[in-house]
């Protein structure tokens, strides 16, 4: 079963700046993401939402500012985060189960088994199919199932609702609520409503 609650921890970002090539995407972005909180990251296309998320999980260097984690032991931030972005991190030649078993072995902190996680996202019947055969929405759901196979306090989601049907959006909202209730924290880059009460909005870019 999932671990009941995460120890209190907080992700504190101060005056982050991001530069891609010669262009300054954003600067002076500050926020604190604490246990049980959700932040909706908004902004126009190209404002740097995905870049901010890439910075948080270590895929992109900062042009300025600082980032620290309070609580959560001595693990670096990248090892406390789950990332589900536009690139879904799935191998098309492997089955959904194989992808999830691999993610679990790689990320550690085992929570649900691959089968249970697929059932939780409503895809128990595709477990044995190569991911390449799945539709865009189904693939997104398999990627979201990764959040459940390994328990990590911070979820960084980049447009998680894209390609999901109405039922799957409700399912995702439910997963996010459960994660917040167990002491996790979520940062979601989004254009639409999330259905989460008390989610703060962080708007970047002009």
């Amino acid at each position: 079963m999932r671990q009941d609650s995460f120890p209190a921890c907080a992700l504190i970002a101060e005056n982050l700046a991001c530069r891609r090539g010669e262009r300054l995407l954003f600067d002076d972005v500050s926020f604190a993401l604490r246990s049980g909180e959700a932040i909706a990251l908004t902004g126009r296309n190209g404002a740097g939402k995905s870049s901010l998320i890439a910075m948080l999980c270590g895929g992109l260097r900062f042009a300025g500012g600082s980032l620290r984690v309070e609580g959560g032991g001595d693990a670096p931030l990248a090892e406390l985060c789950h990332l589900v972005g536009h690139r879904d991190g799935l191998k098309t030649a492997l089955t959904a189960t194989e992808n999830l078993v691999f993610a679990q072995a790689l990320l550690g902190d085992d929570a649900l088994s691959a089968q249970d996680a697929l059932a939780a996202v409503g895809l128990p019947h595709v477990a044995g199919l190569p991911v390449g055969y799945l539709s865009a929405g189904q693939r997104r759901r398999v990627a979201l199932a990764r959040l459940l196979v390994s328990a990590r306090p911070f979820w960084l989601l980049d447009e998680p609702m894209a390609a999901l049907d109405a039922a799957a959006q409700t399912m995702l909202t439910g997963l996010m609520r459960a994660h917040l209730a167990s002491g996790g924290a979520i940062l979601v880059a989004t254009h639409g409503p999330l259905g989460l009460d008390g989610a703060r909005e962080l708007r970047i870019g002009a």
Partner: protein
Amino acid sequence: MTHDRSWSRAFLAIVKRDLALAARAGGGGELALVFFLTIVVLVPFALGPDLNLLSKIGPAILWLGALLSMLIGLDRLFQSDEEDGSLDLIRASALPLELAVLAKGLAHWLTTGLPLALAAPLLGLLVALPAQAMLPVAGTLLVGTPALTFVGAAGAALAAGLRRGGLIVPVLVAPLTVPVLIFGVSAANSAVGGTIPFLTPFLILCAISLAAIVVGTVAAAAALRQGD
């Protein structure tokens, strides 16, 4: 929190996944082997029916063929993981990036270098390789191909972010493989005849491989960290 166990679990997971991918996607391994076969088959046609000449340059042909076959698939080593986001997943693991590179290199060698070395004696027949040279040629390929994998891994890591890396990796890597080629061929030739004992170039080849595994791994991990 025991690092050792979670590290070895993640390490084995990467090796296992890459082996499964190589077996399933029909890429990498077999393609290199078929390419190797093609090169070795073509050379006798180009040289004509001079068996003495063929058997004299046989080891060199086999080594060149193996080298080129290793290089053609290398650009996909990290590029495919970068494109589908698997590299982000690997970065999010507690496993140090160096060990992740080592795991991927190991899987690459098992699916490319090892089959090439095992196939070499068989293909040696096509270039009239003398019987006593079969084992030495396979042996030099066995210990020399890890160097090609890990020198190549450093090049592949540099090109991981390029959308159309294509030929840049072989062009980048080929000059760095010259020492491997020199000592590999010279060890294989010394088994057929000549004045140097087999072990002298063979041990240097082993040393090059060991050094390449260390340096290539660290260099590739550094290149992946710079990835923007």
